[in-house]
């Protein structure tokens, strides 16, 4: 039934660790518990098969694929590139904007399209708003994981305001189909700038409130500090990305380090976990990185709004999308959860030959078994929560 855990050989195991990697059978005092697919704290249909000794986790084997929606197959079956965008939306449904952006970007690079500057600015605004919305879900559900229900509802109130902005822009609340290859589906609506500024002003104190209510609450700190520590070398080796990587103390943000858009022109700072309350790379660091990133995103939004040029948002949308034969591209962007890459191979027809989506959550989740060993079940819940997975993207 249970598979041996997979410790890559180049990781040393601390002395005193129970050796389950050798035998297939568990010891008599251990037991296997299924957490999920229906479990309140697996954030969707993740199934964690955990081996526990008492309450201490000996091993954890994630089982994914309960939401495998055949994204890559669909990409190949579409009649044109544009039709992929709705599916890209549905991949990471908490952060649809960044997903469609990444795909649009990849297609644009494949087609060598240059988009107007206004489009880039709007895309940044949208992506950062989306990042806030996505982090709000992460923070809110993390509150539930830690037993506090109220922050979840507060974050959703704030998120609803962002969704209103999105809805007035493109008509949808969750899955936007807004960023098209070479442009946008709509220009900004008239009152958008005003309302966004309002939102930014409204949201800053809310971040502080959330911090007071949750992040700096002593119980919360005690629960998350020193839990699920992911050292930076391991994080890099596992290609972990996004807030999780930065939470491990690696100052790496694709928006700055592999600039794919105008983000690097704006004034902002990637936020890094410093181990203020525990070890660098623990759950609290990941959480607080998200909280602080939201503030940074607000800065970016403000600047992008200020610098928004005029122009046509549909100028570069190609009539027919037909890249050259055998062209291929891998484009990586910094989505809400980390490095979102699209690898597209074209065969010269109007539909992609192969699309591989490299979802950040998929990769981030793969490190989970490494960091939960030795913790309690409660720690597992918090560690899994701090990774902020979206199953749509893990399973695609």
């Amino acid at each position, binding site marked *: 039934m249970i598979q041996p855990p997979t410790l890559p050989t180049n990781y040393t195991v601390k002395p005193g660790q129970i050796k389950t990697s050798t035998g297939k059978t568990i010891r008599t005092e251990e*037991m296997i*518990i299924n957490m999920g697919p229906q*479990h*309140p*704290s697996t954030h969707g249909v993740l199934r964690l098969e955990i081996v526990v000794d008492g*309450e201490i986790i000996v091993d954890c084997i994630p089982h994914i694929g309960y939401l495998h929606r055949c994204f890559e197959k669909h990409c190949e079956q579409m009649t044109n590139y544009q039709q992929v965008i709705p599916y890209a939306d549905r991949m990471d449904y908490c952060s649809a904007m960044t997903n469609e952006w990444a795909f649009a970007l990849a297609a644009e690079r494949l087609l060598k399209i240059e988009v107007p500057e206004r489009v880039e600015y709007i895309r940044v605004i949208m992506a950062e708003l989306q990042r806030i919305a996505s982090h709000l879900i992460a923070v809110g559900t993390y*509150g*539930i*994981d*830690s*037993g*506090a*229900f*109220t922050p979840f*509802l*507060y974050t959703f*109130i704030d998120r609803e305001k962002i969704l209103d902005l999105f809805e007035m822009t493109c008509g949808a609340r969750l899955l936007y189909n807004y960023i098209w290859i070479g442009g946008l589906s709509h220009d900004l609506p008239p009152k958008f700038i005003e309302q966004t500024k309002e939102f930014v002003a409204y949201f800053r104190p809310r971040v502080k409130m959330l911090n007071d*209510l*949750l992040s700096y*609450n002593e*119980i*919360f700190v*005690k*629960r998350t500090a020193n839990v699920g520590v992911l050292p930076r070398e391991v994080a890099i080796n596992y290609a972990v990305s996004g807030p999780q990587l930065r939470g491990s103390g690696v100052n790496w943000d694709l928006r700055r380090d592999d600039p794919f858009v105008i983000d690097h022109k704006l004034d902002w700072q990637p936020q890094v976990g410093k181990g203020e309350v525990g070890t660098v790379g623990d759950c609290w660091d990941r959480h607080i990185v998200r909280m602080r990133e939201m503030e940074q995103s607000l800065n970016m939004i403000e600047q992008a709004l200020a610098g928004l040029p005029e122009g046509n948002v549909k100028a570069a949308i190609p009539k027919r999308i037909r890249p050259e034969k055998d062209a291929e591209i891998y484009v990586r962007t910094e989505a809400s959860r980390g490095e979102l890459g699209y690898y597209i191979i074209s065969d010269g027809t109007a539909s992609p030959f192969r699309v591989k989506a490299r979802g950040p959550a998929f990769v981030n989740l793969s490190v989970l078994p490494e960091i939960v060993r030795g913790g*309690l*079940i*409660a*720690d597992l*819940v918090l560690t899994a*929560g701090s990774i902020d997975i979206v199953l749509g993207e893990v399973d695609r």
Partner: protein
Amino acid sequence: MEFIQTLLANQLVVSILLSALPLVFIILMVLVVLYTEMKVAAHIQDRVAYMRTGWHGVLQPIADMLKLLQKEDIIPTKADKLLFRAAPFIAFTGTYVAYAVLPFSSIYIGSNINLGAFFLVAAGSLVVIGILMAGWASNNKWSLFGGVRSAAQMISYEIPTALAVIIAVMITGSLNLQEVTKFQDGGIGNWLVFGGPLPWMQKLMLMPFTVITFFILFVASIAEVNRTPFDLPEAESELVQGFNTEYSGMRFAMFYLSEYANLFTVSAVVVSLFLGGWSSPFGAFMSGPVWGVFWFTSKAFLFILIQIWIRWTLPRLRVDQLMYVSWKVLTPWLFVCIFAVGLILVI
């Protein structure tokens, strides 16, 4: 008529009727508390909750109960059927027995045992057994974890509770809750939390310790009823629903009822030991048997409200932190208080 009179003359019948009163109270109280909790929680969270059953949804708890009455009652094949059936009985009975010694008013107390406070401490253990039984009998890993954890938590916090009760007993010199309350009668200044009706010097010296004791008792009582931040046994994010994961329908309703009834019990203990029970805070003003019921329940409700407030604010402790709080924070502080109070009272 005559029949009723003869019936009322029979002491047994009367005491049975009197003993059934708290049951009515429990049911009403649970309905009210359920409603209040959801409403308060909702408003804390900028929501409204229950709006569609009657005026502002006041009938919602009734609907819930009626619905639970209609739910199928599932006994899993693998469960230990006998124990599975017995568990709700034990849990609820244990809860209800505790009501026997709560002094609702100066004239009503279910059973005026001389050892009331002691009895309360002991009765709590029945609930522990019921929960343990439920967790075991379900033959479900989550239930077992929940049940055992619940039991471990309740017994861990029973010690602080008992020690705090002892401090109250030391000051009042009686285990009879009715007498403990009478001892504190006569206004807010006489409440034990402020040192009781003792000479000024003693009172001032006692005050810090009684306040600490009171506070600890309050914390322990939250933990005893498994509420946030101590709600690990039912921690939804880890253990699904804890020990009642496999229970459905009316059997579950009994646990639900007993949980909320316990909520009142622990608040009532705090109130009658430290906040003057049924006695009015204004001395003779607004006091009397009927007012007594009012004061007693409203004080207890105040506590329930505070518990609700705490519940919807805080995250949950982890199990080791839970034990830490009980054994390494509350208990030692209470030892200190016992020594201090003991010394102050004899010199």
